[in-house]
């Protein structure tokens, strides 16, 4: 299941939706808005998440299917929020379930690493009323390259 939404979500409820007694292992990654980001020497008021939804759904579906196949997942949820988000708010949730621990853990890490570089979302720091685009990180691109022998 893939959701691109402006409202928040509840982690327990998302777990319940895919909870299944053939899965013994669930791995979650949650990304939230940090308060200690400094842009233009000022603390941010929050972030703005922009999305090209048609493309993002397509990209997230591909990433999700790749993970389900590679790790034999029973369930896989990706939720990404859009719009203005205050400090501390949830941005993204990746949740995977499998019979086995390693499959759930690795697939969850793969999905967030892939999403970071291949899904049509853009984050802006909000300073006052201004949106300042965040620079893409070379670190994220390098990290994703480490998956090339694991997933193709």
């Amino acid at each position, binding site marked *: 299941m893939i959701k691109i939404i402006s409202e928040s979500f509840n982690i327990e409820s998302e777990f319940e939706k895919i909870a299944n007694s053939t899965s013994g292992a669930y791995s979650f990654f949650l990304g939230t808005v940090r308060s200690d980001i400094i842009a233009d020497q000022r603390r941010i008021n929050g972030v703005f998440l*922009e999305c*090209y939804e048609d*493309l993002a759904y397509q990209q997230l579906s591909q990433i999700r299917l790749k993970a389900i196949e590679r790790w034999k997942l029973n369930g896989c949820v990706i939720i*990404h929020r859009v719009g203005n988000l205050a400090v501390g708010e949830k941005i993204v949730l990746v949740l995977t379930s499998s019979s086995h621990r390693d499959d759930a853990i690795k697939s969850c890490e793969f999905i967030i690493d892939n*999403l970071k570089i291949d899904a049509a979302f*853009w*984050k802006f720091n909000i300073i006052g009323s201004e949106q300042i685009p965040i*620079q*893409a990180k070379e670190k994220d691109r390098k990290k994703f390259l480490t998956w090339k022998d694991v997933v193709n």
Partner: protein
Amino acid sequence: MKINLKYFSWIRVKLKRGQDTIDVVEKITFKKLKPYLIEKDVIFEEIFEDNSTKFFLNLIEINDENIPLNEGDEIAFLPPVTGG
């Protein structure tokens, strides 16, 4: 014919708008669309000079700029993504 342009991230901020619908000659290629846009607004020069930007035609990345465009096509201007 009409085509739709969608702008994201710094490109949207720079252009101060998220999209345009423009009227162009039939079967114009993406390659020929570029100077046409620069002529209308010089900001496009900077946009096309940034080689980290990707262009998508109807949700598929443009690899060959000689691809001819069709009525109702959607071209998206995508700087490197920063979600998650």
